[in-house]
């Protein structure tokens, strides 16, 4: 039993640190880009996530088109109908557990929705929003 608890707590520690580590790197970068930077913001992140844009395909789309409005629920890929597991790490512990995976999807998904890469501020805000959902 003790072992299980130890493993569980190790797991949650390592999980927290990956998202935190990612956000810390972004925060340093944001500070160097703008000395007035004072932290990432959930409210701004929500607007990054829910607002509609003319995406890569020339059609209106948002992050919610694929990830849904409830980040604790399974959703459907807007282009292919394939199921997507919940984006919130609260509902899906596999999320935000690997930097390479996070960076890959953030890069791709910003290109799909905004037709450009995300800015440091947008990335930090939106990830802060997602992990608190």
């Amino acid at each position, binding site marked *: 039993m003790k072992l299980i608890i130890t493993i569980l707590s190790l797991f949650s520690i390592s999980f927290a640190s990956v998202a935190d580590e990612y956000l810390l790197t972004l925060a340093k970068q944001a500070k160097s880009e703008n000395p007035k930077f004072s932290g990432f913001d959930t409210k701004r992140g929500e607007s990054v996530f829910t607002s509609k844009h003319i995406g890569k395909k020339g059609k209106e789309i948002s992050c919610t088109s694929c990830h849904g409005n409830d980040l604790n629920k399974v959703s459907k890929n807007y*282009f*292919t109908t394939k199921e997507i597991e919940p984006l919130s790490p609260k509902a899906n512990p596999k999320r935000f557990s690997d930097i390479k995976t996070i960076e890959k999807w953030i*890069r791709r998904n910003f290109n799909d929705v905004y037709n450009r890469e995300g800015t440091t501020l947008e990335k930090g805000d939106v990830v802060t929003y997602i992990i608190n959902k």
Partner: protein
Amino acid sequence: MKSLILTVALTSAVFASSFNKSDVAPVTNELYKKECGSCHFAYQPGLLPSKAWNKMMLNLSNHFGSDASLEEEDYLSISRYLNNNSAEKFMNYKRSAKIVDSLRAGEIPESISKTPYIIKKHRDIKASLITQKEVKGIFNCTACHTTAQKWIYGESDVLIPNYGKWKD
């Protein structure tokens, strides 16, 4: 002991028969399944010749209008896997052979659904059944072919959403 032998014999018979029925070689590469199976099911490499895979891989940042770009090491590894398992190398599988044989000399198809064999096989399906929101396009093999992930594409296993079993 006898029953054990019998079981083994039966199991291998079942295995052998399902093996013969499979239309394309199974997907065996975990990295491929993970990276190329995240937005749609992982298409069997035996559904396209290597020239078509290579052309597709060269343009992953604009993959049918989506960004599917990969890190260099994953890109190289997946390209290698697709090349080693492409249709023209598995002509002993029925669908791979049919797809390759249907191509005109020098033709490099954009996708599986643009190969003459696949076009011909689907031309009798009403357009509204293909464009409906549960399917969206012929690209979505698994929406209709219930056994596509078991490498079987026979028409007897087709179940079209809001329509049902296919009868010629």
